[in-house]
């Protein structure tokens, strides 16, 4: 074959080949990174919890906070019950406590908040501690609703985007923006303070603020006092601590983490071992596989689907005649009467019966077709055997 001085047959790639092969992937990867960076830079603001007064995203409430500041209302963003109560105390009672999330507050936190002075606005949350006597009745679809009440703040604002839950207030409370199951905004005076509960907090968000009378309603509800103490979820959730004050993660010995890292390395090495193929995957163009009988099967299914008993019976009868006419000693183009006569003479069957079998009308149903097929078989056997 080849002499010892033959050129190398190696297919091992040179650095140039590697560069040409991978530069496309490299360019695409860099493009993806660049795009991700651009999106991260220009998406703006931090995407914290909903109704965060420092959040400029669609679910945040920076817009309302700015509006309040323009009107000379101080907005204090607080993330814990203790600081909220302290801020309310500092304002000397001329404050409004705005609560949009309860899930991070413990019962102790709620009692602390309940003791703080000033008005309260609960948006999207219901709490018996902060708004005694108000209960959620049922779900209500958030949508634009009409005030239909005597609350001045609502009447001035007009329609607003409210919903979430339908509420039931204590006696003497004013219910506004009613849904089918009850009002979605309830306002009442309790122990000298104004407590307002809204079924949903969407009307406070940057997304909805410009619609309807949302901004007016939000300003009317929050701008009455000199300070708004805005309680939002904490930026970092507090760690869960065990009885001894150490969390679960702190109780695991450090060696386990390092051993897990070592195991991850082992898995990566095993993946490299199994993932390396010995040689390429070989593809091959194979000829088409089509059974020649497929057209006949398709025609059979068409007959079946169309209940074409006339065509089916005609085909079966023509096939039988093609086979038996030469056996009867007749020319291939013999007429119907000659064939009937010859078959009658050969088999001794009744002439009308033979005529009905060979030239009768198509069967009326599928059972008749099956019966005709077996009758034709019997007749063929009789002609052959006689």
């Amino acid at each position, binding site marked *: *074959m*080849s002499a*010892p001085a*033959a050129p*190398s*047959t*190696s*297919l*091992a790639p040179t650095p140039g080949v590697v560069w040409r092969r991978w530069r496309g992937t490299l360019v695409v990867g860099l493009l993806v990174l660049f795009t991700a960076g651009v999106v991260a830079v220009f998406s703006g603001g931090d995407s914290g919890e909903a109704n965060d007064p420092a959040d400029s995203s669609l679910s945040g409430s920076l817009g309302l906070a700015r509006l309040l500041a323009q009107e000379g209302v101080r907005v204090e963003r607080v993330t814990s019950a203790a600081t909220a109560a302290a801020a309310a105390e500092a304002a000397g009672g001329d404050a409004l406590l705005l609560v949009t999330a309860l899930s991070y507050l413990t019962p102790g936190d709620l009692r602390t908040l309940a003791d703080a002075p000033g008005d309260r606005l609960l948006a999207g949350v219901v709490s018996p501690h902060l708004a005694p006597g108000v209960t959620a009745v049922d779900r209500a679809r958030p949508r634009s609703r009409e005030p239909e009440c005597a609350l001045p703040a609502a009447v001035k604002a007009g329609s607003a985007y409210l919903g979430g839950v339908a509420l039931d207030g204590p006696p003497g409370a004013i219910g506004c923006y009613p849904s089918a199951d009850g009002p979605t905004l309830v306002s009442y005076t309790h122990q000298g303070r104004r407590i307002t509960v809204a079924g949903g907090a969407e009307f406070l968000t940057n997304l909805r603020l410009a619609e309807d009378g949302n901004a007016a309603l939000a300003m009317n509800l929050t701008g009455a006092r000199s300070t708004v103490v805005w309680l939002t979820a904490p930026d970092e959730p507090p760690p869960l601590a065990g009885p001894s004050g150490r969390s679960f993660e702190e109780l695991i010995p*450090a*060696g386990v983490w*390092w*051993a897990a*890292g*070592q*195991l991850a*390395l*082992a898995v990566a*090495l*095993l993946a*490299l*071992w199994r993932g*390396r193929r*010995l*040689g*390429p995957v*070989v593809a*091959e163009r*194979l*000829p*088409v*596989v*089509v*059974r*020649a*009988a497929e057209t*006949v*099967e398709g*025609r*059979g*299914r*068409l*007959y*079946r689907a169309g209940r074409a008993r006339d*065509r*089916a*019976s005609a*085909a*079966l009868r*023509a*096939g039988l005649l*093609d086979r038996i006419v030469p056996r009867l000693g007749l020319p*291939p183009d013999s007429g119907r009467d000659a064939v009937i006569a010859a078959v009658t003479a050969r088999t001794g069957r009744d002439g009308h019966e033979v005529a009905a079998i060979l030239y009768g009308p198509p069967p009326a149903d*599928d*059972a008749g*077709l*099956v019966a005709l*097929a*077996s009758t034709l*078989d019997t007749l063929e056997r009789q002609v052959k055997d006689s």
Partner: protein
Amino acid sequence: MALTGRAGLLAALGAVAVLFAPEPGLALAGIALLLLALILADLALAGAVRPLRFHRAGDSTVRLGNQARVELIVENPGSRRVRGALRDAWPPSAGAAPRHLALDVPAGEKRRLVTTLTPTRRGDREAVTVTVRSLGPLGVAARQGAHEVPWTVRVLPPFLSRKHLPSRLARLRELEGRHPALVRGQGTEFDSLREYVVGDDVRSIDWRATARRHDVVVRTWRPERDRRVLIVLDTGRTSAGRVGTAPVPLAGALPRTPPGEAAGADAVPPGWPRLDWSMDAALLLAALAARAGDRVDFLAYDRAVRAWVSGASRTELLSALVNVMAPLEAELVESDSAGMVSAVLSHAKRRCLVVLLTDLNSASLEEGLLPLLPQLSARHLVLVAAVSDPRVAAMARGRGTPELVYDAAAAERLNADRRAITARLRRHGVEVVDALPDDIAPALADAYLALKAAGRL
């Protein structure tokens, strides 16, 4: 480069050491560095793959159904032993085994590795690449590289019908008069005069020669020789349909039963394409005609000439035929009958027997071949041979349920079409052989012998 399971195992064992080490972070770093050092050392010490030299030897042709041996000689000119695994990659239908070969070539030596091919398809199978994985002395990492070592194995048609050849040759010898057959008739030509022996037909006595020789002399006769046979193979779409059961496993001939599908009519294996059955019949006819002293030409045609064999000597005819037949595949286009007829007319100047191996498909024949037949049959004797489908015959016997009877009616309809087209062809003076796949080769040979005996060639 490639890693082995040992590298992963070492890393996993290292996890235990890290777990109990007083300084787990340092232990992890140490083990990772140790592994890296082992891998680098192994890679450095492994035998080089790039300078390896390869040569091939062995079979370059094989009949479908048989096995071919292809040898790969690995020469290691480097200074280190190359130990590891080698894969000689072939296309799947070449049926190469074993998949991986163990390799151990000391420095400066050669080793011979054997791959056995069991092809499942006709045609040319080309070796793809040879990939070598050369392990380091520790067995932790390996160098890997590929080489291109070309080799082609041509897979020939199996010619299974050669089992029918001896009986047909015996019939031929009877015709030829090597057995004492002094029957004079059409299709025989004067051979020689010889002395009368008891038992000869008195009608064959040549009285004029008897008068000259003072001895009773008879004439002997022999069949015509040096006639021409042109075998035309239709490689159009109708030849792609698979019929019968494949005597040799063919790629794609196994039943495709996706999970969840009921094993019914779809479980029938698709068998061999009509093309392969036709080739088998063509080979038997060619072998027989060559022995009978006729000249055999071969043409494969769909919309262009796919193969053409002409003027091959009697001894080389069969090998020439299987060689041109090997790469033929059915083209999924309608055959161009006009082109085929003009190709036949241009290639066959003198009168010959044109054996057309196609399908009795009434739609394509009526539009294609039938209007052109007079041109062909005016100058040549035409024989159309077609492979019928045993599955259609089985369907025609279906009874009992409406589904089976509807299928039987569809099959009867097809049979009626075939009979009608056969009758029309016969009216044009064309001989027709329509037989099941297993019978087509002997049936075609018998038709040829009958034509020869009748002197119609």
